[in-house]
């Protein structure tokens, strides 16, 4: 079984398992405190763009901002004139008072173990250290 270091933070074991530094996923209720730079990082900080309610969009099957919010002329617009809605780590619009998902860019990075499944690298576990992750990944690669 070959182990190849593809970068400083990426190791591939036997062609079927990878260990790579990553950021863990967390959830929380969107608030000014959670969106502070010291907590979630500046890329989630678009407070002036946060909007209110969401409604089910029958066309797309997704939850979208309400028409009322989208039609609000005071909302920031993109180049095409569409209302800008900032999104969390899984693509859901961020609304104050509602749950949001974020990557922990501020805390210490962790090490993810990924297994090649149907030609896609699927994360199967996270560990605090590279050593722990590599040991477990090696076991996985030997199965």
């Amino acid at each position, binding site marked *: 079984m070959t182990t190849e270091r*593809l*970068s400083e*933070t*990426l190791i591939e074991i036997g062609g079927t398992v*990878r260990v*790579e*530094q*990553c*950021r863990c996923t967390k959830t929380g209720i969107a608030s000014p405190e959670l969106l502070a730079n010291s907590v979630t990082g500046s*890329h989630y900080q678009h407070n002036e763009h946060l909007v209110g309610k969401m409604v089910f969009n029958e066309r*797309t099957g*997704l939850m979208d901002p309400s028409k009322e919010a989208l039609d609000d002329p005071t909302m920031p617009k*993109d*180049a*095409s004139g*569409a209302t*800008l*809605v*900032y*999104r*969390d*780590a*899984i*693509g859901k619009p961020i609304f104050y008072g509602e749950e949001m998902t974020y*990557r922990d*860019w501020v805390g210490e990075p962790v090490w*993810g173990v*990924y297994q090649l499944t149907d030609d*896609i*690298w*699927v*994360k199967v576990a996270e560990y605090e250290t590279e050593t722990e992750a590599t040991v477990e990944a090696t076991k996985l690669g030997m199965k």
Partner: protein
Amino acid sequence: MPLIAPSALDAALAVVAAATHQQICSAEPTNFTEATSTFRLGTNTPSVGSAGNASPDGRKVTVAAVTSGSVTATGTASHHSLTNSTGSVLLAAKSLSATQAVVSSNTYSLTAYDVRIPAAV
């Protein structure tokens, strides 16, 4: 006021500009594997301009609009990312202004956007 020379910011942006691939993803990737496989729904070769002054401050590069990216998996795209396959590194990631359902083997488009490094404060 502290100073970081524009040439230093440009050097960092040059790393971003060396991106070999751009992806659309079903979630926010945090590393190369996630951007290029775990969450990837499509890919294209990016065209990144040279560094210039940004607004309100700092320096930026502009990633050109995409008109015919290749959708490689069916899903709902919410983010896009830039990677460099030579160094196996994720360079940048950003949410889309709107999610978009995509179907494998179709094409996708993206508007141009800037990658900016603000000035020192």
